């Protein structure tokens, strides 16, 4: 059971005359349906997860429309799905987080772009760049350039974004090029509205099948010798066709301004920030009317050379505002102007920083330099004072504070089943010495933060085992690779396990089997536990043991040393890790660390418990606590856990000065505190409290009798 999107699904049904209100990524989803998309695929990951999540949950409606939706096992399989549009007049859309997803998909994308497409192919990527990003900072633009795919970077206004999806399909069809539509994080989550139109049922669909396959056509294969012809076609036919479509339909917006001798060329996605910067500089009003003419590139590849040349010619200066590096657009414009011998001075990365998100402040710094060079005036000066004020204030605050503020990175959820493994790993290393730990993408990457600070490298999703292949032969001690079940199915099974087995590597792999691809939003996997109608005590437990696809797969592949350990058995986990690191077995050793994602478990049991309480049924609630007079204030327990509900408070003992540990509300009673106290021989201050709500009558009787005895024994 995942997050419910019932409200979002309702808004997908809106028709002409109705207004859609919601987030950008949902608007894109709606736009796909308005464009008559026939098939949708993808791999989830913020900030575009919702596109696929919503569609997967909206299956009944998709069936009604005849749209096929597939949650692909990785981005490569999503990209390969677009192969349907090579021969057939099918509009297809796939989605993933970029740059990482595009990297994984790039093989299929190259092979798709070479023969080109017949039906419109749209790739919606979440450009995970700037504040809030969770991946390496690179640009998707590079892929558009190298494979000759159109790149749409729409102005972050819901109406424009929707229109660009619809144009995106037609542009793709007009040019035979696949088109990428990139959305930055904030654009995915922007809340706005647009006037909806009716959804279009695709002509060919799961409800209206094609009778026969297309005829054999060698030109549609990415195989020599036609690949040589494809390359020529890109330059001779496809890109010119795309340019024509872009120009004819005014996809790029030319916004005039009174200083006609100056100009700003900007990526569509940066439009709002640019307008706010110009407002700060006194060069635009609240409705976006700018004093300096703007050329807003809603399509950043291919550029339309005539459009650029016309915009630049005769101006005193033009600045290109292009986020990220390298500055592909600026370079292309420079070449283009040079070849046409247009002498307009060109600015860009000379005034703007080469790296990092172009927030309003960053952009204002560059634009203020541009303005003060070409439009000196009072407004520019006041903007400079504002920027200077920010700098001064930052250093003033830093001076007031005694030391820099501690960071607050995301961490394992309360009751996360992955935390205990890091506790065990910390204990193991304390005994046998430090080991090289190859990290991976997923929730378990939070183990790189305090209090664990573990992991030597992260080479990509599912890559941990592969990334230690060069380390372990050089290292006296065995190495550890950590992988989530999400990463295992995405990539790790083949790049890691298969390779290690084939090469007879001596390595230790730990797989977190929590049942879901959790960090991307707890989507289901092939190893997700099935529906559970079990009895009460069974339902409270982790359900991951009910699906053993991972274990069966590993055995089938020939893994000889395989242990499945429940993560909350900290001492057993520590001993198993120790055994793996010291065993005489020299092949691949795999530990499946099993424990259901706590988010999912809570989603599963919370409504059920609420129902039990409502009907007066017996419920046992578990909470852990710390005896404040026994706690020694050393906080070793926190250094072994980091659980958000295990925190500290002032010491109630006036003799003692150091704060004591305390378990605050929100504890889900996972049991790690007790397990750690036992496994690491911590102080005896932890207790486990079981609160029995609606107890049975005989329980009350026994408790009453027992209570009176116990009271007699207790001193005050």
């Amino acid at each position, binding site marked *: 059971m995942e997050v419910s999107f019932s409200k979002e699904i309702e808004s997908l049904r809106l028709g002409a005359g109705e207004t859609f209100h919601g987030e950008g990524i949902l608007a894109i989803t709606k736009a796909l349906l308005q464009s008559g998309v026939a098939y949708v695929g993808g791999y989830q990951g*913020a*900030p575009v997860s919702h596109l696929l999540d919503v569609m997967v949950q909206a299956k009944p409606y998709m069936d009604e429309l005849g749209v096929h939706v597939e949650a692909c096992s990785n981005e490569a399989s999503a990209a390969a799905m677009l192969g349907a549009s090579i021969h057939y007049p099918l509009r297809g859309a796939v989605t993933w987080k970029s740059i990482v997803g595009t990297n994984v998909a790039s093989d299929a994308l190259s092979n798709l772009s070479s023969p080109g497409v017949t039906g419109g192919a749209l790739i919606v990527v979440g450009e995970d760049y700037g504040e*809030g*990003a969770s991946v390496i900072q690179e640009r998707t633009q590079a892929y558009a350039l190298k494979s000759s795919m159109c790149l749409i970077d729409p102005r972050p206004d819901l109406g424009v974004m929707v229109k660009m999806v619809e144009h995106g399909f037609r542009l793709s069809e007009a040019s035979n090029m696949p088109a990428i539509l990139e959305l930055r*994080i*904030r*654009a995915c989550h922007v*809340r706005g509205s647009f006037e909806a139109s009716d959804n279009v049922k695709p002509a060919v669909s799961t409800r209206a099948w094609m009778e026969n396959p297309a005829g054999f056509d060698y030109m549609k294969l990415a195989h020599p010798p036609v690949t040589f012809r494809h390359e020529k076609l890109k330059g001779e036919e496809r890109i010119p066709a795309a340019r024509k479509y872009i120009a004819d339909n005014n996809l790029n917006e030319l916004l005039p301004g009174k200083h006609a001798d100056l100009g700003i060329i900007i990526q569509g996605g940066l439009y709002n920030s640019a307008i706010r910067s110009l407002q*700060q500089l006194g060069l635009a*009003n609240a*409705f976006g009317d700018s004093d300096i003419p703007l050329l807003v590139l809603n399509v950043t590849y291919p550029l339309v050379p005539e459009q650029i040349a016309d915009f630049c010619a005769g101006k005193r200066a033009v600045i290109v505002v292009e986020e990220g590096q390298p500055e592909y657009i600026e370079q292309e414009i420079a070449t283009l102007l040079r070849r046409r011998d247009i002498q307009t001075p060109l600015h860009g990365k000379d005034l703007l920083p080469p790296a990092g998100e172009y*927030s*309003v*402040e960053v952009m204002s710094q560059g634009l203020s330099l541009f303005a003060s060079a070409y439009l000196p005036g009072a407004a520019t000066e006041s903007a400079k004072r*504002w920027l200077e004020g*920010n700098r001064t204030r*930052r250093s003033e*605050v830093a001076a*007031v*504070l*005694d030391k820099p503020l*501690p960071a*607050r*990175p*995301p*961490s394992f959820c*309360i009751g996360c089943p992955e935390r205990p493994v890091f506790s065990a790993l910390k204990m193991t290393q304390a005994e046998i010495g430090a080991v090289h730990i190859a990290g991976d993408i997923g*929730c378990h990457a*939070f183990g790189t933060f*305090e209090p664990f600070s573990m992991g030597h490298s992260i080479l990509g999703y599912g890559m941990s085992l592969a990334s230690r292949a060069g380390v372990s032969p050089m290292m*006296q001690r065995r190495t550890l690779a950590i992988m989530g079940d999400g990463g295992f199915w995405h990539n790790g099974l083949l790049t890691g396990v298969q390779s290690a087995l084939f090469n007879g590597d001596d390595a230790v792999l730990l797989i977190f089997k929590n049942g879901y691809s959790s960090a991307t939003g707890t989507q289901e996997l092939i190893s997700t536990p099935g529906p559970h109608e079990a009895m009460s005590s069974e339902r409270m437990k982790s359900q991951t043991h009910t699906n053993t696809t991972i274990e069966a797969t590993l055995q089938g592949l020939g893994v000889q040393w395989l242990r499945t350990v429940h993560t909350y058995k900290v001492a057993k986990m520590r001993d198993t890790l120790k055994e793996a690191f010291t065993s*005489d077995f020299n092949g691949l050793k795999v530990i499946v660390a099993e424990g259901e994602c706590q988010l999912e478990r809570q989603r599963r049991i919370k409504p059920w418990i609420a129902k039990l309480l409502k009907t007066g049924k017996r419920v046992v609630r578990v909470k852990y*606590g710390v*005896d404040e007079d*026994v706690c020694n204030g*050393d*906080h*070793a327990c926190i*250094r072994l856990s980091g659980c*958000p509900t295990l925190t*500290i408070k002032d010491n109630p003992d*006036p*003799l*003692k000065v*150091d704060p004591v540990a305390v378990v605050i509300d929100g504890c889900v009673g996972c049991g790690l505190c007790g397990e750690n*106290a036992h496994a690491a*021989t911590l*102080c*005896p201050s932890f*207790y*486990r409290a*079981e*609160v*029995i*709500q609606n107890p049975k009558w005989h329980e009350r009787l026994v*408790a009453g009798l*027992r209570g009176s005895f*116990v009271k007699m024994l*207790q*001193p005050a």
Partner: protein
Amino acid sequence: MTDARPTSLLICALGGEGGGVLTEWLIETARHAGYAAQSTSIPGVAQRTGATTYYIEVFPVPVAQLGGRKPVFSLNPVPGALDAIVSSELLETTRQIGNGMSAPDRTAVITSSGRTLTTQERMQLGDGRADSAELLAVVRRFSREHHVFDMGAVAKEAGTIVSAVMLGAVAGSGLFPFSRTDYEAVVRGDGGRMAQASLRGFARAYDIVSQPRIQAAFVGDLLSNEEHVAPIQRGLEADIAAMFPPQVHAMLALGHARMLDYQGPAYARLYLERLQQVLAAERAADPAGAQGFATTTEIARWLALWMAFDDIVRVADLKSRATRWQRVSGEVKAGEDDLLQVYDHFKPGAPEFAALLPVGLANKVLAWDRARVLAGKTPWALPLKIGTHSVFGMLALRSLASLKWLRVRGSRYANEQAMIGKWLAGVVQGTRRDWQLGHEIALCGRLIKGYGATNERGKDNLLHVLDHLALGADAQAAAQAVAAARSAALADDAGRALDATLLAHGAPARPVKEQPIRFVRKPKTLAS
């Protein structure tokens, strides 16, 4: 109209606090009231308890008066150009102010006084918490106006989550041109119990922010808490009080009472005798009492804590008291009709049992355990989960608690007393040489705490400091070295900072502890 600019609000929240719901409410309210608005966020993986922000802009002229024109909103909060910041956590508020977000001539800051401590603050060996008063000072200095109250407490009181309280605070501040009924209509939605709780939280926060007097009381409370001194136990007998200067009395009363509770009158007398030695030395070093007998006061504290060292007997005693049962019932919020069962986790090992045995016997037990470890086994320990609510569990704990008579005959007692003697001698000796040196050594009592390995580590560190730093030829330099080593010892439990400090002051690093070596067979490679 063209001069109007959007009203901007930055929301700072932690994952799971309902920041997404809050922004949705605000956008809906704007729509309900007939204004153009836009929100953005960067949730990413921050839902996993990390810090995150949401950003909202509202155009303060009704859509109906815009003549079809659409304002262009920013997707980024603009530092120094925000109208308000609302935040559910004080350190996060300060972080955003530190990022330059708040302009003292423009920005209203509405923040919770509550703290959710970061892992970095929680995991320190001593007290790693940021100073709330310092954080609050930043809020005051860098805001046009500020509203501070404990949002978490208000949410709890209303039975809702903090997002509803934040909404009430925004509404109460009058930031946006919406009426209270606009907000409430949106929160009410289609009714339901959740909505009622949200409305309660909303109303309470609305009142607090719109009525400065209620809020001033909140802030007053917060500030007085900062300087709040825990209630001191009175009732120091006159003859004991007469033995010490009045500055020492408060701590002495606490320490003396602890000795009586821990062991008995004879032990309390030993405490007083020891304290007298230190007092005599301090009087000699500082006859006028210019330092306010600070060393004796500190020794009154640390000596009491050390002498009341935690052992099985003490823990069993603390865990089996009636007051403890009541405290646990309150902490876990057990209702009137609920049954409560409490299990205590213990894992006594050989040292814990040896502690209660005479030295000779204790050494045999410890030697046996060490032999086990050398043979590659884990140290012996007895993991116990004792049901304190059960008759058997309570009987077991009370039996252990009654072993005070055995404690003074045990090896641990002898060992602790010897160590205490050594430390006090160091304090007395140091004080005679230089008041400051004695004081610094006295403060090293802080290193002694806890159980098992933690306690051992503390004692080893203290011994090392006494042997290698306290005896330095230049008393003032020695005092500085001891102070530096003390704070370094609390920096990390591996003792890396301490070793570095020791070396920097010309002392040897702590000796390496012996540990069994494990050999792992590797497949044949060129290296073998």
